[in-house]
Protein backbone atom coordinates (compact mmCIF):
# COMPACT_ATOMS: atom_id res chain seq x y z
CA UNK A 1 0.00 0.00 0.00
CA UNK A 2 1.32 3.42 -0.92
CA UNK A 3 -0.11 6.91 -0.39
CA UNK A 4 0.49 9.50 -3.06
CA UNK A 5 -0.36 13.21 -3.17
CA UNK A 6 -1.14 15.85 -5.81
CA UNK A 7 -0.40 19.56 -5.88
CA UNK A 8 -4.13 20.14 -5.55
CA UNK A 9 -3.99 18.43 -2.15
CA UNK A 10 -5.69 15.18 -3.03
CA UNK A 11 -4.32 11.94 -1.60
CA UNK A 12 -4.62 8.52 -3.20
CA UNK A 13 -4.12 5.35 -1.17
CA UNK A 14 -3.31 2.61 -3.64
CA UNK A 15 -4.08 -1.03 -2.92
CA UNK A 16 -4.42 -3.79 -5.51
CA UNK A 17 -5.06 -1.64 -8.58
CA UNK A 18 -7.54 0.64 -6.76
CA UNK A 19 -6.97 4.03 -5.25
CA UNK A 20 -9.01 5.53 -2.40
CA UNK A 21 -9.04 9.30 -2.84
CA UNK A 22 -9.59 12.14 -0.40
CA UNK A 23 -8.28 15.62 0.38
CA UNK A 24 -5.36 16.22 2.72
CA UNK A 25 -5.84 17.44 6.30
CA UNK A 26 -4.03 20.60 5.18
CA UNK A 27 -6.64 21.23 2.46
CA UNK A 28 -9.50 20.47 4.84
CA UNK A 29 -8.15 22.99 7.32
CA UNK A 30 -7.75 25.64 4.62
CA UNK A 31 -11.36 25.17 3.52
CA UNK A 32 -12.77 25.44 7.02
CA UNK A 33 -15.90 23.59 8.12
CA UNK A 34 -16.97 21.44 5.21
CA UNK A 35 -20.72 21.71 4.67
CA UNK A 36 -21.32 19.81 1.46
CA UNK A 37 -19.68 17.26 -0.75
CA UNK A 38 -20.76 16.36 -4.26
CA UNK A 39 -19.57 12.93 -5.31
CA UNK A 40 -19.22 11.40 -8.78
CA UNK A 41 -21.47 8.64 -10.08
CA UNK A 42 -20.16 5.12 -9.71
CA UNK A 43 -19.18 3.80 -13.11
CA UNK A 44 -18.04 7.13 -14.48
CA UNK A 45 -14.52 7.32 -15.84
CA UNK A 46 -12.12 10.20 -15.46
CA UNK A 47 -8.75 11.16 -16.80
CA UNK A 48 -6.12 12.27 -14.33
CA UNK A 49 -6.75 15.94 -13.55
CA UNK A 50 -10.48 15.87 -14.39
CA UNK A 51 -12.90 17.42 -11.92
CA UNK A 52 -14.40 14.45 -10.10
CA UNK A 53 -16.02 15.88 -6.98
CA UNK A 54 -16.78 19.17 -5.26
CA UNK A 55 -16.22 20.12 -1.67
CA UNK A 56 -17.77 23.19 -0.10
CA UNK A 57 -17.36 25.09 3.12
CA UNK A 58 -19.37 28.17 4.08
CA UNK A 59 -16.82 30.48 2.55
CA UNK A 60 -15.27 28.45 -0.27
CA UNK A 61 -15.98 25.85 -2.90
CA UNK A 62 -13.31 23.70 -4.43
CA UNK A 63 -13.07 21.00 -7.04
CA UNK A 64 -11.55 17.63 -6.22
CA UNK A 65 -9.60 16.33 -9.20
CA UNK A 66 -9.03 12.70 -10.07
CA UNK A 67 -5.36 12.11 -9.15
CA UNK A 68 -5.20 9.21 -11.62
CA UNK A 69 -7.24 8.05 -14.59
CA UNK A 70 -9.81 5.32 -14.16
CA UNK A 71 -13.35 4.30 -13.32
CA UNK A 72 -15.17 5.22 -10.12
CA UNK A 73 -15.97 2.00 -8.27
CA UNK A 74 -17.27 3.37 -4.97
CA UNK A 75 -18.13 6.66 -3.28
CA UNK A 76 -18.27 7.54 0.41
CA UNK A 77 -22.03 7.90 0.96
CA UNK A 78 -21.43 8.79 4.62
CA UNK A 79 -20.28 12.24 3.51
CA UNK A 80 -23.75 13.08 2.26
CA UNK A 81 -25.28 13.05 5.72
CA UNK A 82 -22.12 14.00 7.56
CA UNK A 83 -19.76 16.22 5.57
CA UNK A 84 -17.98 17.09 8.82
CA UNK A 85 -16.13 13.79 8.40
CA UNK A 86 -13.83 15.60 5.99
CA UNK A 87 -12.68 17.89 8.79
CA UNK A 88 -12.64 15.20 11.47
CA UNK A 89 -10.76 12.60 9.48
CA UNK A 90 -9.55 13.96 6.15
CA UNK A 91 -7.13 11.08 5.59
CA UNK A 92 -9.44 8.38 6.97
CA UNK A 93 -13.25 8.23 7.20
CA UNK A 94 -13.49 11.45 5.19
CA UNK A 95 -12.42 9.76 1.92
CA UNK A 96 -14.34 10.74 -1.24
CA UNK A 97 -14.24 7.93 -3.79
CA UNK A 98 -12.42 4.82 -4.96
CA UNK A 99 -11.12 4.70 -8.47
CA UNK A 100 -9.92 1.70 -10.47
CA UNK A 101 -6.55 2.60 -11.91
CA UNK A 102 -6.39 2.68 -15.69
CA UNK A 103 -2.65 3.19 -15.77
CA UNK A 104 -0.47 2.48 -12.74
CA UNK A 105 2.35 4.34 -14.46
CA UNK A 106 0.58 7.63 -13.61
CA UNK A 107 1.39 7.10 -9.94
CA UNK A 108 5.00 7.93 -10.62
CA UNK A 109 3.99 11.50 -11.42
CA UNK A 110 2.50 12.03 -7.93
CA UNK A 111 4.32 13.04 -4.75
CA UNK A 112 5.08 10.72 -1.87
CA UNK A 113 4.31 11.81 1.68
CA UNK A 114 7.69 13.44 2.31
CA UNK A 115 7.60 15.37 -0.94
CA UNK A 116 4.05 16.56 -0.20
CA UNK A 117 5.08 17.70 3.27
CA UNK A 118 7.84 19.77 1.72
CA UNK A 119 5.38 21.09 -0.86
CA UNK A 120 2.97 22.25 1.85
CA UNK A 121 5.79 23.73 3.91
CA UNK A 122 6.69 25.79 0.86
CA UNK A 123 3.19 27.25 0.73
CA UNK A 124 3.20 28.63 4.28
Amino acid sequence: MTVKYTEDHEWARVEGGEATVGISPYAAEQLGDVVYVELPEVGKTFKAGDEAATVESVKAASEVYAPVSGEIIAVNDALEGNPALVNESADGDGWFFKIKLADEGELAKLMNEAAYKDFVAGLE
Partner: protein
Amino acid sequence: MNRQGRPTSAGAPSPSAAPETFSGNKGLEQDEPLLFEIGRDGICGVDLPAPDKGIVSRLGGLERDGAIGLPGVSEPEVVRHFVRLSQKNYAIDLGVYPLGSCTMKHNPRLNEKMARLPGFGDIHPLQPVSTVQGALELMEELAHWLTTITSMPGVALSPKAGAHGELCGLIAIRAALEAKGDKRSRVLVPESAHGTNPATAAAIGYEVDEIPATADGRVDLAAYREKLGPDVAAIMLTNPNTCGLFERDIIEIAEATHDAGGYFYCDGANLNAIMGRVRPGDLGVDAMHINLHKTFSTPHGGGGPGAGPVVLSEALAPFAPLPFVRRAGDGFELVEDESQTKGENPFGRLVAFHGQMGMFVRALSYMMSHGGDGLRQAAEDAVLNANYILASLKDVMSASFEGPCMHEALFDDKFLDGTGVTTLDFAKAMIDEGYHPMTMYFPLVVHGAMLIEPTESESKESLDRFIRTMRGLTEQAKAGDKTRFEGAPYFAPRARLDETGAARKPVLRYTQPQQPAEAAE
Protein backbone atom coordinates in the same frame (compact mmCIF):
# COMPACT_ATOMS: atom_id res chain seq x y z
CA MET B 1 -48.19 68.39 50.38
CA ASN B 2 -48.28 65.23 48.33
CA ARG B 3 -45.78 62.77 49.76
CA GLN B 4 -47.02 59.84 47.70
CA GLY B 5 -45.81 58.81 44.25
CA ARG B 6 -42.89 57.40 42.41
CA PRO B 7 -39.21 58.02 43.19
CA THR B 8 -37.66 60.27 40.58
CA SER B 9 -33.92 59.91 41.21
CA ALA B 10 -31.91 57.51 39.07
CA GLY B 11 -31.51 55.05 41.96
CA ALA B 12 -28.76 52.52 42.25
CA PRO B 13 -26.57 51.87 39.19
CA SER B 14 -27.46 48.79 37.16
CA PRO B 15 -25.81 45.62 38.35
CA SER B 16 -23.11 44.44 35.95
CA ALA B 17 -25.07 41.35 34.98
CA ALA B 18 -28.42 42.21 33.45
CA PRO B 19 -31.31 40.02 34.62
CA GLU B 20 -32.83 37.34 32.42
CA THR B 21 -36.32 38.44 31.42
CA PHE B 22 -39.39 36.20 31.55
CA SER B 23 -40.63 37.46 28.19
CA GLY B 24 -37.39 37.00 26.31
CA ASN B 25 -37.62 40.70 25.40
CA LYS B 26 -35.06 43.26 26.44
CA GLY B 27 -36.82 46.57 26.78
CA LEU B 28 -37.26 48.06 23.35
CA GLU B 29 -35.90 44.93 21.74
CA GLN B 30 -38.83 42.57 21.28
CA ASP B 31 -38.29 38.96 20.44
CA GLU B 32 -40.54 38.06 17.54
CA PRO B 33 -41.60 34.58 16.42
CA LEU B 34 -42.36 33.69 12.82
CA LEU B 35 -45.64 34.75 11.23
CA PHE B 36 -46.47 31.08 11.01
CA GLU B 37 -46.19 30.76 14.77
CA ILE B 38 -48.42 33.72 15.61
CA GLY B 39 -51.06 33.11 12.96
CA ARG B 40 -54.23 31.10 13.48
CA ASP B 41 -57.42 30.19 11.66
CA GLY B 42 -60.42 32.47 11.72
CA ILE B 43 -58.48 35.75 11.53
CA CYS B 44 -57.77 37.93 8.51
CA GLY B 45 -55.88 41.20 8.16
CA VAL B 46 -58.02 42.49 5.28
CA ASP B 47 -61.75 42.93 4.81
CA LEU B 48 -62.87 41.76 1.40
CA PRO B 49 -66.45 41.46 0.18
CA ALA B 50 -67.97 37.99 0.08
CA PRO B 51 -67.80 36.44 -3.39
CA ASP B 52 -71.01 36.60 -5.38
CA LYS B 53 -72.76 33.25 -5.18
CA GLY B 54 -74.55 33.87 -8.47
CA ILE B 55 -71.41 33.68 -10.58
CA VAL B 56 -70.89 30.60 -12.74
CA SER B 57 -67.26 29.58 -12.43
CA ARG B 58 -65.24 29.32 -15.63
CA LEU B 59 -62.31 27.54 -14.03
CA GLY B 60 -62.84 24.33 -15.95
CA GLY B 61 -62.49 22.26 -12.79
CA LEU B 62 -59.04 23.46 -11.98
CA GLU B 63 -59.78 24.58 -8.42
CA ARG B 64 -57.17 23.94 -5.82
CA ASP B 65 -58.17 21.23 -3.35
CA GLY B 66 -56.95 21.52 0.20
CA ALA B 67 -55.67 24.46 2.15
CA ILE B 68 -52.51 26.37 1.31
CA GLY B 69 -51.41 26.54 4.94
CA LEU B 70 -51.09 30.31 5.27
CA PRO B 71 -51.51 31.73 8.77
CA GLY B 72 -54.25 34.22 9.57
CA VAL B 73 -53.03 37.39 11.28
CA SER B 74 -54.93 40.59 12.11
CA GLU B 75 -53.72 43.98 10.91
CA PRO B 76 -52.38 45.21 14.28
CA GLU B 77 -50.44 42.01 14.70
CA VAL B 78 -48.98 42.30 11.21
CA VAL B 79 -47.89 45.87 11.90
CA ARG B 80 -46.28 44.88 15.17
CA HIS B 81 -44.60 41.86 13.65
CA PHE B 82 -42.86 43.82 10.94
CA VAL B 83 -42.05 46.82 13.13
CA ARG B 84 -40.38 44.45 15.57
CA LEU B 85 -38.47 42.78 12.75
CA SER B 86 -37.41 46.15 11.38
CA GLN B 87 -35.88 47.03 14.73
CA LYS B 88 -33.40 44.19 14.32
CA ASN B 89 -31.88 45.82 11.24
CA TYR B 90 -29.07 48.31 10.95
CA ALA B 91 -29.76 51.06 8.39
CA ILE B 92 -28.15 54.14 6.85
CA ASP B 93 -30.86 56.20 8.46
CA LEU B 94 -29.54 54.95 11.81
CA GLY B 95 -25.79 55.35 11.51
CA VAL B 96 -22.57 55.07 9.55
CA TYR B 97 -22.77 52.19 7.04
CA PRO B 98 -19.27 52.21 5.53
CA LEU B 99 -19.61 49.15 3.29
CA GLY B 100 -16.86 49.52 0.72
CA SER B 101 -17.97 49.34 -2.92
CA CYS B 102 -21.62 49.43 -1.85
CA THR B 103 -22.02 53.23 -1.58
CA MET B 104 -24.48 53.39 1.27
CA LYS B 105 -25.42 57.03 0.99
CA HIS B 106 -28.43 58.95 2.25
CA ASN B 107 -31.69 57.99 0.50
CA PRO B 108 -33.75 61.16 0.14
CA ARG B 109 -37.45 60.73 0.87
CA LEU B 110 -38.37 63.12 -1.92
CA ASN B 111 -37.42 60.29 -4.27
CA GLU B 112 -39.91 57.98 -2.57
CA LYS B 113 -42.64 60.57 -2.83
CA MET B 114 -41.97 61.12 -6.54
CA ALA B 115 -41.96 57.41 -7.39
CA ARG B 116 -45.37 57.11 -5.76
CA LEU B 117 -47.06 59.81 -7.85
CA PRO B 118 -49.96 57.96 -9.51
CA GLY B 119 -48.64 59.13 -12.89
CA PHE B 120 -45.52 57.02 -12.30
CA GLY B 121 -46.47 54.36 -9.75
CA ASP B 122 -49.90 53.50 -11.10
CA ILE B 123 -49.26 53.12 -14.83
CA HIS B 124 -49.12 49.80 -16.64
CA PRO B 125 -46.19 48.93 -18.90
CA LEU B 126 -48.54 47.91 -21.70
CA GLN B 127 -50.86 50.93 -21.68
CA PRO B 128 -51.20 52.58 -25.07
CA VAL B 129 -48.05 54.64 -25.62
CA SER B 130 -50.21 57.73 -26.06
CA THR B 131 -51.21 57.46 -22.38
CA VAL B 132 -47.67 57.24 -20.98
CA GLN B 133 -45.86 60.06 -22.75
CA GLY B 134 -44.70 61.50 -19.43
CA ALA B 135 -43.12 58.19 -18.47
CA LEU B 136 -41.22 58.00 -21.74
CA GLU B 137 -40.16 61.62 -21.28
CA LEU B 138 -38.78 60.72 -17.86
CA MET B 139 -36.83 57.79 -19.31
CA GLU B 140 -35.44 60.03 -22.03
CA GLU B 141 -34.51 62.68 -19.47
CA LEU B 142 -32.76 60.09 -17.29
CA ALA B 143 -30.92 58.84 -20.36
CA HIS B 144 -29.82 62.41 -21.07
CA TRP B 145 -28.40 62.83 -17.56
CA LEU B 146 -26.62 59.49 -17.63
CA THR B 147 -25.08 59.97 -21.06
CA THR B 148 -24.05 63.54 -20.24
CA ILE B 149 -22.39 62.59 -16.95
CA THR B 150 -20.50 59.76 -18.66
CA SER B 151 -20.02 61.33 -22.10
CA MET B 152 -21.25 58.20 -23.78
CA PRO B 153 -23.61 58.32 -26.77
CA GLY B 154 -26.00 55.51 -25.90
CA VAL B 155 -27.69 53.94 -22.92
CA ALA B 156 -29.68 50.77 -22.33
CA LEU B 157 -32.04 51.42 -19.44
CA SER B 158 -33.67 48.04 -18.94
CA PRO B 159 -31.10 46.01 -16.90
CA LYS B 160 -32.48 45.29 -13.46
CA ALA B 161 -29.30 45.50 -11.41
CA GLY B 162 -25.54 45.86 -11.68
CA ALA B 163 -24.84 42.25 -12.58
CA HIS B 164 -27.66 42.37 -15.10
CA GLY B 165 -26.05 45.47 -16.59
CA GLU B 166 -22.78 43.57 -16.91
CA LEU B 167 -24.66 40.90 -18.78
CA CYS B 168 -26.16 43.54 -21.06
CA GLY B 169 -22.79 45.16 -21.75
CA LEU B 170 -20.98 41.90 -22.45
CA ILE B 171 -23.74 40.60 -24.69
CA ALA B 172 -23.59 43.88 -26.63
CA ILE B 173 -19.85 43.30 -27.02
CA ARG B 174 -20.37 39.75 -28.17
CA ALA B 175 -23.08 40.84 -30.60
CA ALA B 176 -20.85 43.59 -32.01
CA LEU B 177 -18.00 41.12 -32.51
CA GLU B 178 -20.27 38.55 -34.10
CA ALA B 179 -21.66 41.20 -36.44
CA LYS B 180 -18.11 41.61 -37.68
CA GLY B 181 -17.70 37.86 -37.98
CA ASP B 182 -15.09 38.03 -35.23
CA LYS B 183 -15.15 35.06 -32.84
CA ARG B 184 -13.27 35.72 -29.65
CA SER B 185 -13.02 33.53 -26.60
CA ARG B 186 -11.35 35.32 -23.70
CA VAL B 187 -12.30 38.08 -21.28
CA LEU B 188 -9.60 39.58 -19.08
CA VAL B 189 -10.52 40.39 -15.49
CA PRO B 190 -8.25 41.73 -12.73
CA GLU B 191 -7.80 39.61 -9.62
CA SER B 192 -9.39 42.34 -7.52
CA ALA B 193 -12.64 42.27 -9.51
CA HIS B 194 -16.05 41.84 -7.95
CA GLY B 195 -17.28 38.23 -8.30
CA THR B 196 -20.03 39.20 -10.70
CA ASN B 197 -17.45 40.12 -13.39
CA PRO B 198 -16.03 36.64 -13.92
CA ALA B 199 -19.47 35.10 -13.32
CA THR B 200 -20.97 37.27 -16.07
CA ALA B 201 -18.20 36.61 -18.56
CA ALA B 202 -18.47 32.87 -17.93
CA ALA B 203 -22.28 32.97 -18.18
CA ILE B 204 -22.07 34.07 -21.79
CA GLY B 205 -19.40 31.63 -22.74
CA TYR B 206 -16.15 33.50 -22.33
CA GLU B 207 -13.10 32.00 -20.77
CA VAL B 208 -11.99 34.19 -17.87
CA ASP B 209 -8.35 35.08 -17.63
CA GLU B 210 -7.01 36.96 -14.63
CA ILE B 211 -4.80 40.03 -14.92
CA PRO B 212 -2.19 40.37 -12.19
CA ALA B 213 -1.94 43.54 -10.11
CA THR B 214 1.08 45.71 -9.45
CA ALA B 215 2.40 46.26 -5.94
CA ASP B 216 0.52 49.54 -5.83
CA GLY B 217 -2.85 47.89 -6.34
CA ARG B 218 -3.47 48.57 -10.00
CA VAL B 219 -3.58 46.64 -13.25
CA ASP B 220 -0.09 45.63 -14.36
CA LEU B 221 -0.05 47.29 -17.80
CA ALA B 222 2.92 45.30 -19.07
CA ALA B 223 1.33 42.03 -17.98
CA TYR B 224 -1.94 43.17 -19.50
CA ARG B 225 -0.34 43.83 -22.87
CA GLU B 226 1.17 40.35 -22.72
CA LYS B 227 -2.23 38.80 -22.15
CA LEU B 228 -3.93 40.71 -24.96
CA GLY B 229 -4.36 38.96 -28.24
CA PRO B 230 -6.71 38.46 -31.17
CA ASP B 231 -8.84 36.12 -29.03
CA VAL B 232 -9.58 38.72 -26.34
CA ALA B 233 -13.14 40.01 -26.55
CA ALA B 234 -12.98 42.46 -23.70
CA ILE B 235 -11.42 43.62 -20.50
CA MET B 236 -13.72 44.08 -17.49
CA LEU B 237 -12.24 46.69 -15.26
CA THR B 238 -13.66 48.54 -12.29
CA ASN B 239 -12.54 52.15 -12.10
CA PRO B 240 -11.94 53.43 -9.51
CA ASN B 241 -11.01 49.86 -8.69
CA THR B 242 -12.07 47.74 -5.74
CA CYS B 243 -8.97 48.81 -3.80
CA GLY B 244 -10.38 52.35 -3.97
CA LEU B 245 -7.70 53.48 -6.42
CA PHE B 246 -7.92 55.20 -9.77
CA GLU B 247 -6.31 53.17 -12.54
CA ARG B 248 -3.58 55.58 -13.63
CA ASP B 249 -2.93 53.73 -16.89
CA ILE B 250 -6.55 53.58 -17.87
CA ILE B 251 -6.15 55.42 -21.17
CA GLU B 252 -3.28 53.15 -22.20
CA ILE B 253 -5.33 50.12 -21.14
CA ALA B 254 -8.22 51.30 -23.32
CA GLU B 255 -5.96 51.99 -26.28
CA ALA B 256 -4.19 48.67 -26.03
CA THR B 257 -7.55 46.91 -25.83
CA HIS B 258 -8.89 48.71 -28.87
CA ASP B 259 -5.65 48.12 -30.80
CA ALA B 260 -6.12 44.42 -30.19
CA GLY B 261 -9.68 44.62 -31.51
CA GLY B 262 -11.30 44.14 -28.11
CA TYR B 263 -13.76 46.24 -26.11
CA PHE B 264 -13.43 47.95 -22.76
CA TYR B 265 -16.15 47.08 -20.26
CA CYS B 266 -15.99 49.28 -17.18
CA ASP B 267 -17.73 48.17 -14.00
CA GLY B 268 -19.36 51.41 -12.87
CA ALA B 269 -19.93 50.36 -9.27
CA ASN B 270 -17.67 53.15 -8.09
CA LEU B 271 -18.91 55.97 -10.31
CA ASN B 272 -19.71 57.93 -7.15
CA ALA B 273 -16.05 58.89 -6.81
CA ILE B 274 -15.71 60.55 -10.19
CA MET B 275 -19.06 61.88 -11.40
CA GLY B 276 -18.73 65.43 -12.59
CA ARG B 277 -14.93 65.21 -12.54
CA VAL B 278 -14.09 62.40 -14.95
CA ARG B 279 -16.22 61.06 -17.79
CA PRO B 280 -15.79 57.39 -18.68
CA GLY B 281 -16.35 58.28 -22.33
CA ASP B 282 -13.14 60.32 -22.24
CA LEU B 283 -11.25 57.28 -20.96
CA GLY B 284 -12.09 55.03 -23.89
CA VAL B 285 -14.80 53.00 -22.19
CA ASP B 286 -17.16 51.08 -24.50
CA ALA B 287 -19.75 49.95 -21.98
CA MET B 288 -20.37 50.67 -18.33
CA HIS B 289 -23.25 49.82 -16.03
CA ILE B 290 -24.39 52.38 -13.50
CA ASN B 291 -25.82 51.09 -10.23
CA LEU B 292 -28.64 53.56 -9.64
CA HIS B 293 -28.94 52.02 -6.17
CA LYS B 294 -25.39 53.05 -5.34
CA THR B 295 -24.44 56.26 -7.07
CA PHE B 296 -27.89 57.74 -7.46
CA SER B 297 -29.30 56.88 -4.04
CA THR B 298 -32.19 54.57 -4.84
CA PRO B 299 -32.67 52.56 -1.64
CA HIS B 300 -30.98 49.19 -1.21
CA GLY B 301 -34.04 47.83 0.58
CA GLY B 302 -32.22 44.95 2.30
CA GLY B 303 -30.79 43.65 -0.97
CA GLY B 304 -32.72 45.15 -3.81
CA PRO B 305 -34.33 46.06 -6.09
CA GLY B 306 -31.46 47.58 -8.00
CA ALA B 307 -31.25 49.11 -11.43
CA GLY B 308 -28.29 48.88 -13.77
CA PRO B 309 -28.56 51.01 -16.91
CA VAL B 310 -25.60 50.55 -19.26
CA VAL B 311 -24.03 53.44 -21.14
CA LEU B 312 -22.58 52.46 -24.50
CA SER B 313 -20.01 53.80 -26.95
CA GLU B 314 -20.73 54.62 -30.59
CA ALA B 315 -19.54 51.14 -31.54
CA LEU B 316 -21.88 49.31 -29.17
CA ALA B 317 -24.93 51.60 -29.03
CA PRO B 318 -26.67 50.05 -32.07
CA PHE B 319 -26.69 46.66 -30.32
CA ALA B 320 -28.53 47.91 -27.20
CA PRO B 321 -31.39 45.60 -26.24
CA LEU B 322 -35.11 46.18 -26.70
CA PRO B 323 -37.00 48.17 -25.64
CA PHE B 324 -35.82 51.76 -26.00
CA VAL B 325 -37.40 55.19 -26.22
CA ARG B 326 -37.19 57.28 -29.36
CA ARG B 327 -38.24 60.87 -29.93
CA ALA B 328 -41.04 61.16 -32.48
CA GLY B 329 -42.29 64.58 -33.37
CA ASP B 330 -43.35 66.36 -30.22
CA GLY B 331 -43.57 63.13 -28.29
CA PHE B 332 -41.90 59.81 -27.73
CA GLU B 333 -42.30 56.32 -29.05
CA LEU B 334 -41.30 53.05 -27.49
CA VAL B 335 -39.39 50.63 -29.69
CA GLU B 336 -40.44 47.23 -28.39
CA ASP B 337 -39.86 45.02 -31.38
CA GLU B 338 -37.29 44.58 -34.11
CA SER B 339 -39.87 45.52 -36.71
CA GLN B 340 -39.84 49.07 -35.33
CA THR B 341 -36.06 49.54 -35.56
CA LYS B 342 -34.48 52.09 -37.89
CA GLY B 343 -30.91 51.01 -38.42
CA GLU B 344 -30.42 49.75 -34.87
CA ASN B 345 -29.50 46.13 -34.40
CA PRO B 346 -30.72 45.19 -30.90
CA PHE B 347 -29.32 41.95 -29.53
CA GLY B 348 -32.70 40.94 -28.13
CA ARG B 349 -34.53 41.50 -24.88
CA LEU B 350 -33.20 41.18 -21.32
CA VAL B 351 -36.39 41.63 -19.32
CA ALA B 352 -40.14 41.74 -19.65
CA PHE B 353 -41.36 45.32 -20.04
CA HIS B 354 -39.07 48.34 -19.86
CA GLY B 355 -36.87 48.24 -16.77
CA GLN B 356 -37.00 49.59 -13.25
CA MET B 357 -39.22 52.64 -13.72
CA GLY B 358 -39.61 53.16 -9.99
CA MET B 359 -35.83 53.40 -9.71
CA PHE B 360 -35.60 55.71 -12.74
CA VAL B 361 -37.89 58.24 -11.05
CA ARG B 362 -35.93 58.09 -7.80
CA ALA B 363 -32.57 58.45 -9.54
CA LEU B 364 -33.70 61.38 -11.64
CA SER B 365 -35.18 63.08 -8.59
CA TYR B 366 -31.79 62.67 -6.90
CA MET B 367 -29.88 63.97 -9.92
CA MET B 368 -32.13 66.97 -10.43
CA SER B 369 -31.80 67.81 -6.74
CA HIS B 370 -28.00 67.74 -6.95
CA GLY B 371 -27.66 69.22 -10.39
CA GLY B 372 -24.41 69.01 -12.30
CA ASP B 373 -22.71 71.13 -9.63
CA GLY B 374 -24.00 69.08 -6.73
CA LEU B 375 -23.04 65.75 -8.27
CA ARG B 376 -19.48 66.97 -8.68
CA GLN B 377 -19.48 68.24 -5.10
CA ALA B 378 -20.85 64.90 -3.89
CA ALA B 379 -18.02 63.04 -5.64
CA GLU B 380 -15.45 65.39 -4.14
CA ASP B 381 -16.90 65.07 -0.66
CA ALA B 382 -16.99 61.27 -0.97
CA VAL B 383 -13.32 61.26 -1.92
CA LEU B 384 -12.46 63.80 0.76
CA ASN B 385 -14.23 61.77 3.46
CA ALA B 386 -12.45 58.57 2.47
CA ASN B 387 -9.06 60.27 2.44
CA TYR B 388 -9.80 61.83 5.81
CA ILE B 389 -10.39 58.36 7.23
CA LEU B 390 -7.29 57.01 5.54
CA ALA B 391 -5.15 59.86 6.89
CA SER B 392 -6.60 59.56 10.38
CA LEU B 393 -6.20 55.81 10.72
CA LYS B 394 -3.12 54.87 8.73
CA ASP B 395 -0.77 55.36 11.70
CA VAL B 396 -2.59 52.67 13.73
CA MET B 397 -4.18 50.44 11.09
CA SER B 398 -2.33 49.06 8.08
CA ALA B 399 -3.28 50.84 4.88
CA SER B 400 -2.74 48.46 1.97
CA PHE B 401 -1.65 51.10 -0.52
CA GLU B 402 -0.21 54.60 -0.53
CA GLY B 403 -2.82 57.31 -0.83
CA PRO B 404 -4.55 59.21 -1.97
CA CYS B 405 -7.46 56.89 -2.34
CA MET B 406 -10.67 57.66 -4.16
CA HIS B 407 -14.01 57.11 -2.41
CA GLU B 408 -12.96 54.20 -0.21
CA ALA B 409 -9.96 53.38 1.99
CA LEU B 410 -8.53 49.87 2.04
CA PHE B 411 -6.79 48.36 5.06
CA ASP B 412 -5.52 44.85 5.62
CA ASP B 413 -5.10 42.88 8.83
CA LYS B 414 -1.35 43.35 9.30
CA PHE B 415 -1.98 45.70 12.22
CA LEU B 416 -3.69 42.82 13.98
CA ASP B 417 -0.71 40.48 13.61
CA GLY B 418 0.01 38.74 16.88
CA THR B 419 -3.14 40.04 18.60
CA GLY B 420 -5.21 36.93 17.95
CA VAL B 421 -7.97 39.24 16.70
CA THR B 422 -9.18 38.68 13.15
CA THR B 423 -10.82 41.02 10.67
CA LEU B 424 -14.11 39.30 11.47
CA ASP B 425 -13.67 39.84 15.23
CA PHE B 426 -12.81 43.46 14.63
CA ALA B 427 -15.89 43.92 12.46
CA LYS B 428 -18.16 42.37 15.07
CA ALA B 429 -16.73 44.66 17.75
CA MET B 430 -17.68 47.62 15.54
CA ILE B 431 -21.28 46.43 15.80
CA ASP B 432 -21.10 46.84 19.59
CA GLU B 433 -19.92 50.38 19.01
CA GLY B 434 -23.03 51.14 17.00
CA TYR B 435 -21.48 50.94 13.54
CA HIS B 436 -22.16 48.72 10.60
CA PRO B 437 -18.86 47.01 9.73
CA MET B 438 -17.01 47.91 6.57
CA THR B 439 -16.77 45.44 3.70
CA MET B 440 -14.52 42.66 4.92
CA TYR B 441 -12.39 40.04 3.18
CA PHE B 442 -12.95 41.82 -0.14
CA PRO B 443 -11.10 42.56 -2.36
CA LEU B 444 -9.29 39.25 -2.28
CA VAL B 445 -5.94 40.79 -3.22
CA VAL B 446 -5.04 41.81 0.34
CA HIS B 447 -5.16 39.69 3.48
CA GLY B 448 -8.12 40.19 5.80
CA ALA B 449 -9.32 43.19 3.81
CA MET B 450 -11.28 46.02 5.46
CA LEU B 451 -12.73 48.33 2.84
CA ILE B 452 -14.21 51.54 4.25
CA GLU B 453 -16.47 53.74 2.14
CA PRO B 454 -17.97 56.58 4.18
CA THR B 455 -19.71 58.32 1.22
CA GLU B 456 -20.42 62.02 1.06
CA SER B 457 -23.37 61.67 3.44
CA GLU B 458 -21.25 61.75 6.63
CA SER B 459 -20.52 64.99 8.43
CA LYS B 460 -17.03 65.71 9.79
CA GLU B 461 -18.34 65.23 13.34
CA SER B 462 -19.66 61.82 12.42
CA LEU B 463 -16.34 60.84 10.84
CA ASP B 464 -14.43 62.08 13.89
CA ARG B 465 -16.53 59.88 16.17
CA PHE B 466 -16.01 56.94 13.85
CA ILE B 467 -12.25 57.54 13.74
CA ARG B 468 -12.02 57.79 17.55
CA THR B 469 -13.89 54.51 17.84
CA MET B 470 -11.69 52.73 15.31
CA ARG B 471 -8.55 54.00 17.04
CA GLY B 472 -9.89 52.85 20.39
CA LEU B 473 -10.66 49.37 19.08
CA THR B 474 -7.24 49.17 17.46
CA GLU B 475 -5.52 50.06 20.72
CA GLN B 476 -7.58 47.56 22.63
CA ALA B 477 -6.77 44.78 20.17
CA LYS B 478 -3.09 45.56 20.38
CA ALA B 479 -3.31 45.64 24.19
CA GLY B 480 -4.34 42.01 24.09
CA ASP B 481 -7.99 42.32 25.08
CA LYS B 482 -9.21 39.41 22.96
CA THR B 483 -12.46 38.63 24.75
CA ARG B 484 -14.05 41.93 23.80
CA PHE B 485 -13.50 40.94 20.15
CA GLU B 486 -14.01 37.20 20.17
CA GLY B 487 -17.34 37.39 21.96
CA ALA B 488 -18.60 40.32 19.90
CA PRO B 489 -21.20 41.40 19.19
CA TYR B 490 -22.57 41.65 22.73
CA PHE B 491 -25.12 44.37 22.01
CA ALA B 492 -26.86 43.04 18.92
CA PRO B 493 -30.20 41.23 18.66
CA ARG B 494 -28.20 38.05 18.08
CA ALA B 495 -24.71 36.82 18.92
CA ARG B 496 -22.67 35.32 16.09
CA LEU B 497 -24.72 32.88 14.10
CA ASP B 498 -23.76 29.34 13.16
CA GLU B 499 -23.33 29.55 9.41
CA THR B 500 -21.76 26.10 9.24
CA GLY B 501 -24.81 24.52 10.80
CA ALA B 502 -27.10 26.49 8.49
CA ALA B 503 -25.27 25.19 5.42
CA ARG B 504 -24.85 21.57 6.57
CA LYS B 505 -28.51 21.00 7.28
CA PRO B 506 -30.32 23.72 5.35
CA VAL B 507 -33.69 24.74 6.82
CA LEU B 508 -35.07 27.09 4.20
CA ARG B 509 -38.70 27.34 5.23
CA TYR B 510 -40.97 26.93 8.20
CA THR B 511 -42.61 23.57 8.57
CA GLN B 512 -45.39 23.00 11.07
CA PRO B 513 -44.33 20.70 13.86
CA GLN B 514 -45.79 17.16 13.50
CA GLN B 515 -47.96 18.17 10.59
CA PRO B 516 -45.69 18.63 7.59
CA ALA B 517 -47.12 21.04 5.05
CA GLU B 518 -48.32 19.74 1.69
CA ALA B 519 -45.39 19.67 -0.68
CA ALA B 520 -44.45 18.26 -4.03
CA GLU B 521 -43.96 14.50 -4.01
